[in-house]
């Protein structure tokens, strides 16, 4: 924030910092990786890329097992996690998300299990398709989860966060496909990874412009470090993947692998930077008071000017 006077109570925070812990940024990453992998698996199957579809389906099944574990571990009272499913509340992104995760988790793990066991080949395609349909909200609802809050950098980024998250999800799912599928099978995964990286970087750019002074939190502290790492890894990863192309051995294969690893790291750092930025913007009362005071004084407050 600039030095224009902001009146605060001894500089103490207006908002509480989120109670969430390390599980949440990992959940954001894992949910995005899984959701986008499910979409990739179903489309790959229909396009005749069975090898890639199988690998992506297993990635999705793995994340569908990890996701609930991460969410439950983050609760203050993990033994009561089922209370999430005693109501369905459209006003609560967490309630909606819990139902998405419950349904998606069953379908994604079901797909993986049926495939591994070789049971009900007809049902496999159906379940795989359903998992892909739910994989789309799985990869993006977490942006609403963050934005539906009073945390300034999350709420004010409500238009751009979903695109940053879906781009990040695509980049990570593509990267996982590159690492797990043979080079000649991974063409679509490479294209998805590079395109996802571009969307993530673009959305973050637009977001930071939209946030204006609030975007400062992405320049300092842990959020700043993660943001720099995310952008660096994602850009370098996309470049290496593009460079590596379909090369099956030697330097080009290495470049593909390194690029995919960097893309995964970039996606993880991206989630951590958004997560940490929320804490930083809540901890400083100026990020809360200043925008509110300015819009009030300009007659643009929630309350119509007298």
């Amino acid at each position, binding site marked *: 924030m600039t030095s224009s006077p902001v009146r605060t109570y001894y500089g103490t925070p207006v908002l509480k910092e989120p109670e969430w812990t390390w599980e949440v940024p990992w959940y954001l990453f894992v949910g995005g990786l899984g959701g986008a992998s499910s979409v990739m698996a179903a489309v790959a199957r229909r396009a005749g890329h069975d090898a890639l579809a199988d690998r992506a389906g297993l990635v999705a099944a793995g994340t569908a097992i990890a996701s609930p574990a991460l969410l439950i571990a983050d609760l203050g009272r993990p033994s009561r996690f089922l209370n999430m499913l005693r109501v369905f509340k459209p006003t609560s992104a967490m309630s909606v998300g819990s139902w998405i995760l419950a349904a998606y988790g069953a379908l994604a793990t079901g797909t993986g299990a049926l495939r591994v066991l070789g049971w009900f080949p007809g049902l496999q395609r159906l379940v795989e398709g359903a998992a892909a349909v739910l994989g789309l909200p799985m990869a993006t609802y977490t942006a609403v989860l963050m*934005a539906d809050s009073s945390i300034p950098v999350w709420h004010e980024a409500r238009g751009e966060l979903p695109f940053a998250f879906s781009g990040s999800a695509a980049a990570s799912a593509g990267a996982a496909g590159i690492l797990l599928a043979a080079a000649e099978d991974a063409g679509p995964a490479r294209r998805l990874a590079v395109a*996802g990286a571009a969307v993530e970087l673009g959305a973050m750019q637009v977001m930071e412009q939209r946030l204006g002074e609030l975007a400062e939190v992405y320049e300092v502290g842990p959020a700043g470090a993660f943001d720099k790492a995310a952008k660096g890894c994602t850009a370098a990863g996309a470049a290496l993947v593009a460079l590596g192309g379909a090369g099956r051995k030697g330097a080009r294969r290495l470049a593909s692998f390194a690029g995919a690893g960097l893309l995964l790291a970039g996606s993880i750092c991206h989630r951590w930077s958004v997560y940490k930025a929320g804490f930083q913007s809540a901890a400083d009362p100026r990020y809360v008071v200043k925008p509110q005071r300015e819009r009030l004084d300009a007659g643009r407050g929630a309350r119509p000017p007298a």
Partner: protein
Amino acid sequence: MTPLPLDALLNRDGGPTLAGLDAGVRYGFFTDTSICIGCKACEVACKEWNAVPEARRAFTGNSMDNTGALGANAWRHVAFIEQSRAPQEPGGAGGTGPPQEPGGAGPRQEPVFADLTWFGDEPQALIPDFNGVAAAPDQDFRWLMASDVCKHCTEAACLEVCPTGAIFYTEYRTVVVQDDVCNGCGYCVTACPYGVIERREADGGAWKCTLCYDRMKGGKQPACAMACPTDSIQFGPLDHLRERADARVGELQEAGHPARLYGRDEDDGVSGNGAFFLLLDDPEVYRLPPDPVTPTRNLKAMWTSAGKAAALLAVGVVAAFMGGTSRR
């Protein structure tokens, strides 16, 4: 309900609730900070009645405020603000010291020399620095005190985002957490635009003021209002409180005080507060957000954006597989 005489809201008459409370009528607090004396009886009474655990044991150095902030273990919090000059006067600093740069402690002011007489003592030569605000020789000093509490919003963000339904509106239109349903997800904590509700470390659940729901069920006013010796905290049917507040703010403004009401009107970002305040300075001076908005108001825009992002993802994946028969 039978209308109560306005004076019946005051403690000297035993409170407004002797005849029992009417379900369906919205009750709340009107906290008139202009007559708060900073005794913290509200904090103590609240802790005592609700068995609220110890909040903190630290010396903040922020005037007489050693409670710090509202939270899981502090459901009433008395703020103390020392001002060297009324803020609307030219050159008046106001607030709690000089504006600070973010990310660091602000500059401390030099100690101010003053010449005050303390209860018949010899005149004092030096008043130590209290966060950059010190008494000036001409007594050009004021001390604001305010007892803060959960606002019991009309559009309560904590309630709207709660995924378990643990937070509910009572028959008195207050906002209460049902502890045996709460699973400690912490979503309410990120949603509250006032930073009130908080997860309690000891049991992992979210806690805040209940407006003494149990006492109300028994026809009694909340403990803090009962204990307040100056009737700075007034409890009663919200429409009565609003009448009282309008009269009071009018009196003060006529007498030249910069009084204003905070959270009284239903056209603000949370559709008004069940617990509202009379303030003598900008809300942010008391650590109240000047323009709070319930985040769920923008939920439609968020889901629309997420829907578009999901569609882009679908299109992107399909496009990645296009490009003819080549698997490369």
